């Protein structure tokens, strides 16, 4: 009988601890933003850095991956929160920032392809043997363009819906550069030409 009381007591304490330390932690926008900012600070990055191709190029991929992972965990934790306006703001902000980081990772992947072609010296024979890689670059540039468009739309939507919060989060005037359609078309055209002459 005593044992049963002890077990019941432990279960009650465990449930109480869960509510105190996990389920019970309800973020306000400011406390949530503080948490999000800490992820960026940990990697020595700022959202604005990821709108500059030069800084994306210089940023370590491992840091971006860790940042993405932290933001995803935070996004999951928000799902256990009670519905509120602050929760909605934080969810939208996290989603936007995740898009920003994903776009940076995609850019880094494309930099690798571009660097590959740079390293070949654009020799005709090498180009002919790298048509697959050129097609992959073309596809990824299209993805990067779509990702940038999507991210810009979210940044704009968040800034319009919550201008104060966007300012606090440092995303109020961010805009990613979208790849030029003309370049993509030219690349597509040239790949077709290479397929003919190689």
């Amino acid at each position, binding site marked *: 009988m005593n044992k049963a009381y002890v077990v019941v007591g432990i279960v009650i304490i465990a449930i109480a601890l869960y509510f105190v330390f996990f389920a019970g932690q309800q973020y306000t926008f400011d406390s949530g933003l503080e948490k999000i900012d800490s992820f960026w600070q940990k990697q020595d990055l700022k959202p604005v850095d990821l709108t500059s191709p030069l800084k994306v190029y*210089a940023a370590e991929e491992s840091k971006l991956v860790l940042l993405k992972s932290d933001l995803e965990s935070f996004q999951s934790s928000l799902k256990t929160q009670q519905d509120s306006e602050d929760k909605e703001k934080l969810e939208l902000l996290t989603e936007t920032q995740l898009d920003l980081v994903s776009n940076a990772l995609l850019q880094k992947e494309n930099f690798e392809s571009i660097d590959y072609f*740079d390293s070949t010296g*654009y020799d*005709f024979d090498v180009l002919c043997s790298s048509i697959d890689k050129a097609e992959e670059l073309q596809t990824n540039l299209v993805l990067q363009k779509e990702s940038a468009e999507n991210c810009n739309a979210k940044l704009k939507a968040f800034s319009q819906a919550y201008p104060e919060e966007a300012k606090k989060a440092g995303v109020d005037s961010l805009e990613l550069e979208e*790849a030029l359609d003309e370049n993509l*078309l030219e*690349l597509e*055209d*040239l790949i077709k*030409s290479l397929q003919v002459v190689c």
Partner: protein
Amino acid sequence: MKKLSLLLFVLLFSFTVSADEEVNCIESNAGSNVYSANFPLIPKESSYCDIPLEFEGFKLRVELKNGVYEKKDVFTLMINSYIIREQAYLSTKSKTDQIDCSSWPGLTLDLESKVTQQGMGGHTTVSGDNFPYLQDCGVGYKWYNPGAPDKILASLNIQRATKQIDIDAGVVPVRAKAIIKIEVKKDAVKNYFSEQFKNIVSQADPRNKEGEFTVYIDREQAKLLVIPETVIRINLERIDYQENKAFFKLTNIEENEEELCKVEAFFDGKDAKFENCGLAEVKIEGLNPTNKPLEDSRGVGYKFKYFVNPKDPGVVDKDAEPAEDSEVCENKGEERTGCEKIKGCPGKQICKDGVWSDCIDIPGDGCPAATPSGDLTENQKALNQAILKKYYEEIFKVDSDTWSAWVK
């Protein structure tokens, strides 16, 4: 008389309404890749000839257009080159693809500036300016010879014309011919594809920035422009019209306009090279092939193009963070020696704001050797005096009063 007027009307009409005209490109010897074509001196809308290239479906089109008399005795011809591809190979673009001739490193073009023609009712000769128009490719689809006028000059010598010809109205005998020889070198197409691919990939790379700007000669400004998406501002320092060169200073707009680097650019673009500018390398290239200013709607000025390339991440990281041994220090004012030499002399660093300063000269150590100057600090002057005393007293064996009198 009526017949003559009618004939003149027909001739004039033929200039104004006719469209493109194809002429034959004739290979001088089989397999030589050297072609020649007889173009009308006054092209219709344009006159062109097509040269087959080494890959089936691809042709080089050489086009002569916009032949105009700028003024008496000066005649300008524009020559363009295009690659033509068969429609079947293309999905998104029109049949002809205009290519800047700079994409054709293997293409040479030799315009014979001597042209003759038989005029109507009399003999008219057109002779060239005897300039060897063996062409290199310039910017803007034009062919030019560095140092030569950016146009083809021909002088008209109307010896015996039965009727006054109105040159300003462009009414000249239609049978005048310009002979153009074209040589397409081997591998030109391969080189073209390589160059095109490189250009397009480079354009698709958002790290690589390039753009054009103009330095107007009548409103020189120190601050010219900020390169988009960078912190780099291009400032004009000065223009040297003797050397045909402009000097630029690049500054960081986020760091109180701190100087990043200096870049020099010849007007005609020669010897342009990348300079280290913080996170990136920057090159400025002149776009004025004849070293003459160009005119646009805003005025007369020299055109330039900037190119920005990022450094590789390793270099970026190294530049972004100061070297370990020159970064952190604790005691403000503390000095240490052993840093890189200044003009062959040992230098020192001073702890300032938590970091070691740049390597500076150690004053009073007699190195480098002092030279009298009118722009010295008191300490430097004292040092010079000490060195001079040593020289004069020990080497020249003169007393102090004497050497003091010498150096006053």
